[in-house]
């Protein structure tokens, strides 16, 4: 049963990713990206990361994607006939060959390492959000504060960048 769900989420997210890159209309690309984000959040549920699932749906699908679609509608770009770069055919073949080699290497790799203390049973005891919160606000408190300052700076910078410059007439009056 778990394998069926994994296959569904994996296949749909890969197809949605390819559609995001390949579709012509930017709004359709945005909707394909929405499908990708939702199915990746399904993969998070299969990995026992329910808190990340909620964050993915709320922040990615709810906030970031709406920002993208908002800017797309605001700019009202007309799609060019030539929407791929001129050198696309020379890039596709190396990418596919490189991907096949990478997958070959990945399937052969053993992937083992020292295990931590957060086993599935330990996480399910109090829930994933509890485990993330305890870890975040004990070992990663400084990084959490840094990311808060970073986000504030990024949002202020975005507003300053996008603010309409005052026209010359109003500047002369002032």
């Amino acid at each position, binding site marked *: 049963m778990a394998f069926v769900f994994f296959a569904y989420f994996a296949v749909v997210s890969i197809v949605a990713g390819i559609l995001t890159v390949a579709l012509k209309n930017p709004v359709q690309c945005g909707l394909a990206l929405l499908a990708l984000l939702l199915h990746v959040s399904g993969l998070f549920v299969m990995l026992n990361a329910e808190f990340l699932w909620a964050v993915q749906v709320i922040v990615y699908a709810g906030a970031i994607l709406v920002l993208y679609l908002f800017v797309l509608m605001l700019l009202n770009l007309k799609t060019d006939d030539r929407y791929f770069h001129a050198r696309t055919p020379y890039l596709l073949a190396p990418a596919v060959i490189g991907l096949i080699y990478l997958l070959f290497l990945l399937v052969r790799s053993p992937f083992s390492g020292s295990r931590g203390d957060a086993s599935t049973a330990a996480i399910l005891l109090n829930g994933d959000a509890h485990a993330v919160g305890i870890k975040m606000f004990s070992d990663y408190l400084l990084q959490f504060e840094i990311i808060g300052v970073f986000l504030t700076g990024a949002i202020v910078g*975005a507003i300053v960048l996008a603010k309409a410059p005052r026209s010359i007439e109003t500047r002369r009056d002032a």
Partner: protein
Amino acid sequence: MIPLSAYVAVSAILFTTGLLGVLIRRNFIIVLMSVEIMLNAATINLVAFSHYLESMQGQIVALFIIAIAAGEAAIGLAIIIVVFRGKISTNVDEMNLLKW
């Protein structure tokens, strides 16, 4: 039980798709969307290793990645609006304002 390499393979395919999208698309907004695909691929990797190695660190870093993605989207879209206001095309191969 799904093997870890299955998750890593999905992540690798998604990352290659995003990388190709950055390289071949001309529309700046689609290029930013491809960057989001690449960030999502990295997040899948982190969460999968976090689950299989029974550690919490991967999920914490995945949360940081989502925060960074939000900041990146805000700054990138602001730059697109500024470029578009100057009546310049938003195709990446025609943008050469900073070229000396």
